[in-house]
């Protein structure tokens, strides 16, 4: 097992190096540089002269070929230096660090909600398989899964922000806190945050809820037809116990992989939703840094998402061996 772990970690590092290399090459070959993107916004009278541009390019390391710059970036990474954000003029680690919290709050809440609701829903639909209420529930879940979250977000905003304007039910347009957040009392602050989270969390949750419960159900349907389930039923085990102890336990293997695979989504998944609700998380930061060609920030975020994905897969594989004695790593 230890050997296996060491091997996986080594391969992980190689994988990381290759991913960052590809992405680094791609983003450096995008048209426009952080300097010219900035110029596009400022007025013509403040245009930088070619000499000045050259000087700035030297400072930011844009004068070198991208492969040289990549090696430099890697070298700095070894010293845990992610570089400085072009746009914010601050270290990338600080810029990203500030955004982890908001994204984590949003994604962890919605993930926990989704899992808590999905397992009972999946078991319920399996138990009632083929009956009218199961068909209705399953169909509704498919429908929910198919509604794009940004469409829901827009429709909910149209309802709660535009149509209910002036009523006590009006919800904020976006952001994480109100303008007068600082003046609110302790409970008021909490309530304010809650109100701001309501729509984003709702939009982020319903899709994965539908997906997970469908996942549970489709796995359960395979297991429920096995002979040992019939045996368990025949010897008089109560239906609920058959469902949970005998059947659900045996669907855990794919479920475990799913947890590992959703881990990276925890932090990177909400690019569109964060952009709709101007939620100051990593997804929005990523989108902004792409449009601004803020290379160090893009690279920092890419590295982070990749590490998370690799970690998620490793955890999934280890859990795999944990829950299924047939799988061994030796």
């Amino acid at each position, binding site marked *: 097992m230890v050997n296996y772990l060491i091997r996986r970690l080594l391969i992980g590092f190689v994988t990381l190096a290759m991913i960052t290399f590809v992405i680094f090459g791609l983003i450096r070959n995008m048209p426009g540089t952080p300097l010219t993107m900035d110029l596009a916004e400022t007025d013509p009278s403040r245009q930088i002269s070619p000499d000045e541009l050259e000087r700035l390019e030297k400072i930011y390391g844009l004068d070198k070929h991208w492969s040289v710059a990549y090696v430099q970036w890697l070298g700095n990474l070894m010293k845990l230096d992610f570089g400085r954000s072009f746009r914010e003029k601050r270290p990338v680690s600080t810029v990203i660090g500030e955004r982890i919290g908001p994204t984590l709050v949003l994604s962890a809440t919605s993930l926990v909600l989704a899992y808590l609701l999905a397992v009972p829903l999946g078991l319920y639909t399996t138990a009632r398989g083929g009956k009218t209420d199961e068909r209705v529930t399953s169909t509704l879940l498919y429908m929910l899964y*198919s509604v794009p979250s940004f469409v829901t977000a827009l429709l909910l905003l*149209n309802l709660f922000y535009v149509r209910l304007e002036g009523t006590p039910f009006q919800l904020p347009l976006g952001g994480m806190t109100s303008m007068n957040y600082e003046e609110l009392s302790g409970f008021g602050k909490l309530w304010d945050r809650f109100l701001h989270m309501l729509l984003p969390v709702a939009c982020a949750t319903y899709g994965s809820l539908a997906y997970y419960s469908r996942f549970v159900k489709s796995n359960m349907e395979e297991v429920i037809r096995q002979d040992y389930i019939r045996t368990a039923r025949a010897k008089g085990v109560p239906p609920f116990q058959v469902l949970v102890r005998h059947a659900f336990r045996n669907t855990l293997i794919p479920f475990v992989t799913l947890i590992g695979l959703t881990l990276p989504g925890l932090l990177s998944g909400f690019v*569109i939703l964060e*952009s709709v609700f101007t939620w100051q998380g990593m997804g929005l930061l*990523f989108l902004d840094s792409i449009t601004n060609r803020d290379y160090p920030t893009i690279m920092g975020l*890419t590295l982070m998402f990749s590490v998370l994905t690799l970690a998620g*897969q490793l955890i999934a594989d280890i859990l795999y061996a944990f829950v299924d004695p047939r799988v061994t790593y030796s």
Partner: protein
Amino acid sequence: MSNASLQPATVAPASPGFIAESWRRFRRRKLASLAFCFVVALTLVAIFSPAIAGTKPVVCKYQGGIYFPALSYFNPRWENEIFFRDGFRQRYVENLKEKDPNSWAIWPLVYQDPYRRVREGEWPGHPGNASYAPPNRRNLFGTNHPGVDVFAQMVHGTRIALLVGFVSTGIAALIGLTVGALAGYLGGKLDMLLSRVIEMVMCIPALVLILALLAVLDTPTIWHLMAVLGLTGWTSIARLTRAEFLKLRQTEYVAAARALGAGRLRIMFRHILPNSLAPVLVPISFGIAAAILIESGLSFLGFGAPPPNPSWGTLLNAGRANLQMWWLILFPGLAVFLTVLAYNLIGEGIQEATDPKLRQGRK
């Protein structure tokens, strides 16, 4: 004695093939069949989009020749150059009458253009599109800010949505199934290598890759977008296929096939693949839906199908800036929703129709 009497008295009827049998079972499922009809209808809308909404005649006779100017909605180059030479400037109604009194034309059902605003008097009795008009008799789904008809944009946007779903998932399934099958069945060093490749592609945040690739290309088209979606979206299919193959290669029937001398490729694609296809069809069906979702999401963010392609997501993008214009949100949102739903239902229908294990239980 004739040869005939040697034949058995009764010949057992040929049992229907796997596909015919599955199709029969698929059709028995009402929702899935309905979804299939919806996709067929949508395909028809996509094919006949220039005849449903447009400002160019479907067929016209002009100076002795028969032309099909509406085809230029598929490809601008298909517009006959005679119309450029005669300076039509996309205004067919007045120019046809003016330049050739003997001309005739068959017009689309709705005189609206997905790319530009219809002006007053362009069509006899047409008052012209207002900017931000709510749904009305002339603009069934309203208009957007420049006064372009939303209905026309949605009809023409159907083409993009369907193509994106089909092509990108086709690419993804082809790569995913091959890689997954090879890694899962052959195992060993190859599995190690392919698993690393899967991990690598999975780790590249799809959005980074899509945005970076689209930005690097000088003139990204919808085809580039499809290729990128296909090249990034195959990993879940590959992983599931690999897991299935890992499981199935230990089974008795595979051992039996091997004992009978079946070759590797034969076992992989003839014996294991059909049995592993059912679980893999779930990610494929969701894959089509996801591709349509991502395309509309990218257009929604302003990164998608480059203008002036009318895409459902582009309309939603306009709706985001104008939250009170519900028609810019509801109609394209509904279109994306129904298409994605249809593909999900079809996928589920296929799964239940082809999976022998599910079949036994639900005769």
